[in-house]
């Protein structure tokens, strides 16, 4: 069985900066894989390569043995790659419900113009989309806020709305960019439970960027560590925690001095 995501020798440079340098990783079915590293290590850049926002200079990205290195972002979404954003991908002017309906875009069957001209099929399907969104919001406990404009909601709720949107794209593999940012330690711990639960109930595979170490240790099956665009280490969380270079990178010291 091929891994869900198979990344080989990914490199990208911006001017003189090697943002990613021969990074290889794979994410197996139903795994929750953590991606950690100091700021500027290239974690979000890697996400952008996986979702097709950046085109890597070198290397391949395979999704279930299918090479998607050059395919457009929206096609990857249709294949089943969903993501959340560190700075939130919500549309602040729309309501929570409208945001989640927008996120179902890839699965709408009626044509854009038939919707514009008000075809009966579009009305029927809109009802279906609303029902789907209703279900997702109920699932995440956002239903009471469904008709609120997202811009006016607290950060934590917006974050949840972002997750709801990612789920609405009906992903197979979910890329989470710092899901615990803006949360207290206790909330972060609960988030771990939520993620496991999402994985189990929605049959997801998760790759997440995360800084909160207890969360990573508690929930991840496997961890990759990036530093200055290079893969510094990989392994199960318990080993990564003790890895001297990882400790050094996080403390900002020279690896040699630490070891």
């Amino acid at each position, binding site marked *: 069985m091929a891994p869900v995501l198979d990344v080989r020798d990914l490199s990208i440079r911006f001017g003189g900066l090697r943002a990613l340098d021969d990074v290889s990783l794979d994410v197996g079915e139903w795994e929750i894989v953590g991606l950690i590293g100091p700021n500027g290590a290239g974690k979000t850049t890697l996400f952008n390569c996986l979702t097709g926002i950046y085109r890597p200079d070198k290397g391949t990205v395979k999704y279930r043995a299918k090479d998607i290195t050059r395919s457009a972002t929206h096609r990857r979404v249709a294949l089943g790659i969903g993501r959340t954003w560190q700075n939130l991908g919500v549309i*602040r002017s729309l309501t929570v419900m409208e945001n989640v309906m927008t996120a179902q875009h890839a699965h709408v069957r009626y044509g*854009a113009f038939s919707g514009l001209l008000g075809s009966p099929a579009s009305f029927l399907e809109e009802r279906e989309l609303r029902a789907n969104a209703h279900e997702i919001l109920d699932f995440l406990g956002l239903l009471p*806020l469904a*008709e609120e404009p997202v811009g006016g909601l607290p950060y934590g709720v917006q974050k949840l709305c972002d997750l709801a949107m990612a789920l609405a794209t009906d992903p197979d593999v979910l890329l989470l960019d710092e899901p615990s940012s803006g949360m207290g330690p206790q909330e972060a711990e609960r988030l771990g439970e939520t993620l496991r639960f999402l994985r189990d109930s929605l049959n997801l595979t998760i790759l997440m960027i995360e800084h909160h170490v207890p969360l990573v240790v508690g929930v991840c099956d496997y961890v990759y560590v990036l530093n200055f665009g290079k893969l510094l280490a990989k392994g*199960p969380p318990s080993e990564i925690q003790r890895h001297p270079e990882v400790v050094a990178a996080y403390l900002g010291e020279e690896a040699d001095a630490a070891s």
Partner: protein
Amino acid sequence: MATRSARVGDEGPAGGETRRETGVVPIPDSADAPTVTRAPATEEVATRLRSTRSLPAKAAPAGAPARGFRLSRVGIASRATVAALIAAGVLLLPIPLDNVWRSRMALAVIFAVIGLSVNVITGHAGQISLGHQAFVGIGAFMSAYVVARFNFAAGFLAAGLTGAMLALILGLVALRIRGLYLALITLAFGLMAENTIFGIRGFTGGGAGAPAPRPALFQSDLAYVYLCLAVLAASLLVDWRLLRTKAGRAVVALRNDERVAATLGINVTQFKLLAFVVGGFMAGMAGSLFAHWNQFVQAEDFELRRALVWVLMAVVGGLGSRAGIVIGSAFFALFDFVVADIAGGSTWHLPLVGDVLVIILAPLFGAFLLLLTLTLYPGGIGQQLLPVRRWLAGGPFLERAHRPSREKKEERD
């Protein structure tokens, strides 16, 4: 998971060589593969999920317009009555008017269609268009050209299609260029159209212009107002459906952030072009109506000044608000006439002062309104109309006034 350990096995040492010391920790073979059983998302599942997360319950009612508000039968009846009165008022308005005002009303309605077309491109898609006179103008000339050879319906349709085509070309530019530079390019595009396309003698009659006769059915000013109103109604309908179907949501999402929109599965290229095409089609139709309103087309009618007024009226009306844009557009269409009427009124006609009023006051007033809008009501007339809209949609006229104090109290607690 066998593939993973195998791959890591033969890749691990190779990776280690390129890095100093032992950069890579090999995965132990005992790494337990997650054995997950699939479970459907049941109600039980949902409750469990909810219990794992703390959602601030007090945030729930904040800002909800219609929460805890139930319509009585009287409420429904009164709202229906007001809505019907507004519709009847607009529909019956042309009948008591004289021909001069009927003609002016037709222009106001045409401006409203143009305002809606600006709204699709600039309001929904967020692509500033300062070359709108090109779309409207090409529609006007195309309509006059085709009507002279075929009939009005063909001319009207051709006007919409050429407007859409021209907008599509500009849309292709907008795929690459954003913000201020796009504004400059659209500006240059409009000027170019003015000086080249509108000057083709065989097509537009050159500087002399071209006649644009009305069809027999809509010869009278009264009938023509209703034709324009019908086109406005169709445009409003399309705008309404746009925002409530996938196309509009995609367009709004790409205005918000193109990269995020793409990760929601939206083909950004396709839907940006769609916005231009829809806006261009509306502008072309409006151009056709404009040509036959005047019964004559000339390039002077489609100067940059006009395009600026059209953007102005859409902004003052409130981008994104249909009702606001219709009112704003009508205001800007009629304002010049009203000022001219007053300044040229026989009762207190002052030479010079009257002319100064018309030439200086009208543009100045437009600029003043824009400033007022940007500082006080960024949502334009649409924002000011919000209570009315909320009320008509079945909510309370005013939001409950005691809410802020209650929130404060909760914070203290």
